[in-house]
């Protein structure tokens, strides 16, 4: 059996983030808390963010799910940490476009996230990859409102 297609999905960078997730855990005191589920499959993420002066000072996640959802959460926290909120939201938009197979801003340095591009070829798995990003967007918007 040939699994060439699978190699597009399960790139080694993704597996590395899955095995040794970055920013795993929760930020204590005064952080933004977001719980999000993927109701169709049971993936669950608990994201905590610390936003000060329009900058994402810290981001940590906890939860359970498949390799794609957990690797994507790890990469997301890595990408947004230290960024301005607008930059983080911009990255989220770029990521969403990439998942939907739309044209996206390739000038942006996506780092490890680029490895998730193959997910767009697996429609059933796109929601796994976007869960953490949706949680981040929700957290940032909720803080803006308050």
């Amino acid at each position: 059996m040939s699994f060439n297609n699978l190699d597009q999905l399960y790139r080694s960078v993704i597996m590395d983030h899955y095995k040794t997730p970055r920013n795993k855990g929760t930020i204590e005191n005064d952080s933004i808390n977001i719980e999000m589920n993927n109701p169709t499959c049971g993936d669950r993420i608990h994201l905590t963010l610390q936003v000060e002066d329009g900058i994402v000072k810290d981001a940590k996640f906890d939860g359970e799910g498949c390799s794609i959802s957990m690797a994507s959460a790890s990469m997301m926290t890595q990408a947004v940490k230290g960024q301005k909120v607008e930059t983080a939201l911009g990255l989220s938009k770029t990521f969403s476009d990439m998942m939907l197979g739309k044209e996206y801003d390739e000038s942006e340095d996506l780092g490890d996230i680029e490895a998730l591009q193959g997910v767009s070829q697996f429609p059933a798995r796109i929601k796994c990859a976007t869960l953490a990003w949706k949680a981040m967007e929700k957290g940032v918007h909720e803080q803006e409102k308050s």
Partner: protein
Amino acid sequence: MISKEIKSYFPILNQEINGNPLIYLDSAATSQKPVQVIEALEYYYKLDNSNVHRGVHTLGNRATEKYEGAREKVQKFINAGSTEEVIFLRGTTTAINLVAQSYGRANVNEGDEIVITYMEHHSNIIPWQQLAKERGAILKYIELEEDGTISLEQVKAAITERTKMVSMVYVSNVLGTMNPVKEVARIAHENGAVMVVDGAQAAPHLKIDVQQLDCDFFAFSGHKMVGPTGIGVLYGKKALLNEMEPVEFGGEMIDFVGLYDSTWKELPWKFEGGTPIIAGAVGLGAAIDFLNEIGLDEIEKHEHEMAAYAMEKMSGIDGLEIYGPKDPAKRAGIVTFNLNDVHPHDVATVLDMSGIAVRAGHHCAQPLMKWLEVSATARASFYLYNGESDIDRLVEGLRSAKEYFNDVF
């Protein structure tokens, strides 16, 4: 024995997925449709389509005969006392909601109990949660045994004189467990409660006799038993249905309409508001003919064999855990499992690349996932068109999945 040629009646199975012949192991989600059902739908729309119970014209009569003819087929299929006890609805979910909203609202009061189990599908949990909240009633869960079965001791412990309704799945969509619903119905009746049976996974696979089970309500869906989507059945005892108010009001279900008050048609039509699901019922009738031709006893036997073969072959894979009863005789053709260290979504994606369709996730049974202490599982479910070679392909696919993930880890 079910002939291997049965597969040739299902055109969808004759295709390649991701470069491999399709092996469809997700019939517990929905079954595939034989050409007989597809043609019955086509024939109905090409030659007989019309609205029912109204036209003086010939087509109207023909459509009515087909629709009511399908009801007779269902009545015989489940051995209901009469066609008045067979209500066509959208599916199992709608049927259970009707019972909760009509019978439940009228009979469940503050402090009363509704008893269900830990292995219910969401469609047999949430209607009762909502009813309990609305009426101030108590929702109780029957505990499961360690092997995912239900013991009558636990049933007796849960059902009391305050219990008004007991609702239980006949065959679990996750564990495959076949529950002793006849005995549970007896215990429910001894305590003055009514018994509702979620038969969604049972009707496709076992001979159903509602009179022998002595349940008060029995719900099932057409699409899991080689019929079309959008058609299902609620069976109810006539005496109970007669007492119950409809929950949907409009055309087709009325007897006389005044300016400020109206009266309802007799059974079963008072529960079938709006233009009914005519083509769906015709398709379900064709599905019943197809299953009867093979014989439900044969189908049940085939599924036990499939389950036994799958469990034997799958347990040879290191690190593969199967949930539910270990004894294949206690389960239908459903095998839910996890491959250690590989998340079920990842398992399902790798299998899909080999043309094998399985379900991954919580199977609309989150309380059961909690009981199993897992967030998700993979599930292979078998039907009359599956054979041992399909299971061999599954096992081969699982071994490849394991190897693949061992390599990348």
